[in-house]
């Protein structure tokens, strides 16, 4: 009898647990991994869960994986809201996979800089970063001032550039191309200029954090990298500094899209509102060393030395995401055949 009672209690507890999880609605959020996901949890997820009682499950991946997933599940997405690079947000918008964002449903929409909104409100840029030069001040005496400093013989074999599959690889190629007189319609000068640089690179990195160990062991002194990753690494004690080349850094605009066909639209809007809020943006900026799109956010002095702002932001080159989306496949194929071969 006692045994039976125990079983019954266990069953009841289990049943209650099951129903309570079924009641709490779950929002699936696509986000980039590593420290990005940690910051999403701390700045966006926590406040959202507290306010709505819903739970968030993060699905980790990179922008092109998310674009592929949205296409594969067209109309029946397995994510309700997705962080994605703006060029791929433009791609999924062209494939009609994004829901138009209704600004009226967002309390914080009016605080967001107007340029953050994508064409037809198909996406909204949520943060501002860049590809710029990151160096180890112990090994690099004079602050680098140009992209071309990378090719300085003093750093022969002591630098690394990104593979074109990552944002920094593509953006460094385009920056070099512009510097050498190329245009977005003709990247021949860039390809020619990057060939020897790629050959001499310690590694063509495919994951941003691959550079951590290379910087740590002193294997590289300088690299085109991201100020946000560098800032987080500095917090962990790495000897690094960020320099903005005089030709201008290349802007990176991680955006947010609401996939078409999601059944949790209302919750997704609430989550997006938290992402765009001054509090959510400020928290993310501080933790992730990334620029905000909410005008009410004020950057601390420490952040100002790392994050693109003021002059470095004005000089930064923001490439039309549609042009990137249309050409990145062609550029990647050329890279595979002419640069990385």
């Amino acid at each position, binding site marked *: 009898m006692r045994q039976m009672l125990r079983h019954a209690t266990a069953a009841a507890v289990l049943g209650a647990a099951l129903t309570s999880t079924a009641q709490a609605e779950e929002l699936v959020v696509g986000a980039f991994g590593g420290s990005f996901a940690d910051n999403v949890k701390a700045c966006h997820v926590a406040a959202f869960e507290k306010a709505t009682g819903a739970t968030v499950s993060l699905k980790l991946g990179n922008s*092109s*994986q998310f*674009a*592929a997933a949205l*296409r594969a599940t067209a109309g029946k997405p397995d994510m309700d809201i997705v962080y994605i690079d703006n060029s791929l947000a*433009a*791609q999924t918008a*062209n*494939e009609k996979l994004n829901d138009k964002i209704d600004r009226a449903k967002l309390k914080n929409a009016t605080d967001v800089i107007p340029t953050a909104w994508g064409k037809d409100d198909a996406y909204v840029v949520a943060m501002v970063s860049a590809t710029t030069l990151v160096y180890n001040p112990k090994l690099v005496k004079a602050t680098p001032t140009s992209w071309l400093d990378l090719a300085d013989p003093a750093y022969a074999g002591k630098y690394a550039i990104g*593979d*074109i*599959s990552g944002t920094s690889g593509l953006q460094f190629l385009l920056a070099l191309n512009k510097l050498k007189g190329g245009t977005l319609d003709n990247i021949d000068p860039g390809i020619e200029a990057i060939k020897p640089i790629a050959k001499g690179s*310690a*590694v*063509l990195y*495919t994951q941003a954090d691959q550079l951590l160990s290379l910087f740590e*062991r002193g*294997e590289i002194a300088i690299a085109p990298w991201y100020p946000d990753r560098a800032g987080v690494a500095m917090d962990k004690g790495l000897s690094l500094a960020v320099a903005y080349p005089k030709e201008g850094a290349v802007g990176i605009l991680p955006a947010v899209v609401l996939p078409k066909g999601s059944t949790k639209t209302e919750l997704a809007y609430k989550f997006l509102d938290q992402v765009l809020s001054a509090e959510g943006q400020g928290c993310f900026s501080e933790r992730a060393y990334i620029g905000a799109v909410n005008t009410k956010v004020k950057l601390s002095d420490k952040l100002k030395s790392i994050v693109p702002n003021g002059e470095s932001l004005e000089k930064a080159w923001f490439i039309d995401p*549609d042009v990137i*989306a*249309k*050409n*990145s*496949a*062609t550029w*990647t*194929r050329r890279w*595979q*055949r002419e640069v*990385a*071969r």
Partner: protein
Amino acid sequence: MMSRRQGLLLVAPLLLVLAGFFLVPVLMLLPTSFGVYEPGAGLVKGAWSLKNYTQIVTDDYYREVIWRTLGLGFSVTLICLLLGYPLAYLIARGPERWRVPLILLVIFPMLLNLVVRSFGWIALLANRGLINNLLMQLGLIAAPVKLLFNFVGLFIGLTHIYLPFMVLMLVAAIRNVPRDVESAAATLGSSRAHVFMAVTLPLSAPGILAGSILVFVLTISALVTPRMLGGPTYQVMATLIYDEYMQLLDWPSGSALSFALTFMAVAIIWLSSRLTRRWAGMA
């Protein structure tokens, strides 16, 4: 003797699973492989093209990757066979008490995750890895030898990972060779080497064939190890297909490459089993 119907019933569950979860999805890819992809805009509805297939032949980059993949497949299979046969022979014919420890030794690496094993090779083969550091400290080389992101790295890594499959197949085959046939050959005056070459080796041909096919197919379709040890620059078919799908979002081109890979694998398996059967006198 089992009737045809009984036999069919026995394999029916497997056939259903294969048809539902392998054949149908693969066939669904077929229309995609003739599709047209417009970068930035997605798949063009209603458009058809043979370009995805013709470019595999005409583009010398694709050709290079195909030859590299096949070259890796053949060399890894060959070295697995050369390294695996003596070991398998020892396990099958050696002292009884060695058998279990040796088999455990062969199986043990398979218990470790593929990513961990590949990562281990990165630690060993990198420019500042264990092997290069050791050689440099011994003064044998001045600058690091490039062992990663090229043929050598993939060859070493894939051989290590697929050798167990070859050994296990060979052990079973060698144990199936009837000993009295060997004894008969010896009685009739064959030397030990001749017995091995004329009797044991041909009679273990089914195992050699099965092991080789397994290792070859696994090698040319491997994704994780080539990606990790080959990096972004040293591409094989599998990593190329992955990139076409996941990075360039060009699904038609990726599907066409997948079919090309499948076709090559099937053709080579068919050819090699015919050749082996002739050699082993099974035809």
